[in-house]
């Protein structure tokens, strides 16, 4: 993000928080449903001191990371196969395109039946949701490699490995990172959805429980933590993308 963008985002968030505080004080917002930011902040500090909450965060973090680390290589492998091997592509690309349009959340009950309410179930569902995004990204990345540059590399004596290292990898890097970033957003959503739907631990599980018990300050505090973590991951990937893709920018 450029500096002025950061300032705008920070000012926007601060403005929203102040507006919220003001509306609660004026009595326009029900403090029982939407406690003031100060109250939420106090709950946040208290929660971060509770070991079981930290464990829940760690469980969720582990599930998200595991699902991501499985989905990205698997998705890229499938994507490259579909894009580079004409036979495989002709056979399976229509199917993948078709399945991409189906909302993955409707399969959640199936995952519970197969895996039970367990950590592997969260990871499996995370992988299932994420892998399609990564497959699409892998295909797009391969297809973004300009064929003329392959000819240039061949004329100047590049072997197969050199063509991969010198042309494919740098040409695909920005799109691969972009699809990893989008995949991560889907992944976090999927894992939290699983936890809210049915789990024994994880921050999604706690959010659901606090919600049901009307423990609104805790609920909002947890939302803030999850949002901050997700935005952090997203921004880190985005800045890597901008750095590796600087050459894509028009003059």
């Amino acid at each position: 993000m450029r500096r002025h963008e950061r300032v705008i985002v920070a000012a926007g968030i601060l403005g929203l928080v102040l507006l919220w505080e003001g509306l609660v004080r004026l009595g326009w917002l029900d403090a029982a449903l939407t406690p003031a930011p100060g109250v939420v902040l106090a709950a946040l500090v208290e929660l971060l001191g509770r070991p079981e909450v930290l464990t829940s965060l760690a469980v969720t973090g582990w599930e998200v990371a595991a699902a991501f680390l499985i989905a990205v290589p698997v998705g890229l492998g499938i994507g490259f196969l579909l894009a580079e091997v004409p036979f495989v592509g002709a056979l399976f690309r229509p199917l993948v395109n078709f399945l991409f349009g189906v909302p993955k959340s409707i399969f959640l009950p199936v995952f519970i039946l197969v895996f039970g309410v367990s950590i592997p179930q969260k990871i499996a569902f995370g992988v299932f949701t994420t892998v399609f995004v990564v497959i699409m990204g892998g295909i797009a990345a391969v297809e973004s490699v300009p064929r003329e540059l392959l000819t240039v590399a061949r004329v100047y004596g590049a072997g197969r490995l050199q063509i991969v290292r010198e042309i494919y990898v740098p040409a695909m890097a920005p799109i691969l990172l972009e699809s990893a970033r989008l995949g991560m957003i889907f992944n976090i959503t999927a894992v939290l959805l699983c936890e809210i739907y049915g789990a024994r631990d994880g921050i999604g599980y706690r959010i659901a429980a606090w919600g049901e018990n009307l423990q609104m300050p805790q609920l909002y505090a947890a939302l803030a933590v999850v949002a901050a973590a997700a935005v952090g991951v997203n921004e880190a990937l985005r800045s890597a993308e901008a750095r590796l893709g600087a050459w894509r920018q028009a003059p």
Partner: protein
Amino acid sequence: MSKAVLSLRGISHAFAVDGVAVPALADIDVDVPDGQFVSVVGPSGCGKSTLLSLAAGLRRPSRGVVLCDGEEVTAPMPRKIGMVFQEANLLPWLSAIENVAFPLKLRGVAKPQRLQAAARMLELTGLAGFEERLPHQLSGGMKQRVAIARGLVQDPGVLLMDEPFASLDEQTRMVLGDELLRIWSETRKTVLFVTHSLHEAVYLADRVIVLSARPGRIVDDVDVSLPRPRTFAMTSSERFGALKERIWRHIRRAERP
């Protein structure tokens, strides 16, 4: 005349389109002596570019052989043959100097040496001071200069040029034509230059090879014999006009349906 650096012997080539062989070139025999600048012209689709990709070793001809320095060309020979394309085809993530150094990188030349060689080539092509620019920060003419520098960086004997100025505007094209002649006179490469501009073909070359419509055959081999250095004034001379007209007759005959 010195001996041929580049020879095309009995070349015929056909493409398989839906299982049917479509002839693109037939019975091409050319010997290009060391240091000669040869233009290749012909009606659209006559196989000019195919001829160049055969000479580059990017394809194998259906029949015949390509020889470079007496050695058969069966695959690209980066140290002997450089190539410049219609589009500059620079690697967009590399700076100008890194693009020029790219062929040396593929060969495993150490970074300081290859950057030094690349800097010399950028200077030769008039781009000193633009070393660190990315391709998207360069104009079309500058990109093509980088591509020429890249083609020359390994000091190959032969430079193949496939309509290198075709996507540039008229003025840039004229300037680059003169620049190419200056570079050529300093380096004395053997050049095979494909173009569809008759003016450019005559202005630049020692010799113009004219191909017929598909499948391309050599219908004329014109000795330009205008003095060098070439000047803009020569383009309005009688000799220049006569050469252009002679070539145009062949093309017009071929282009007529």
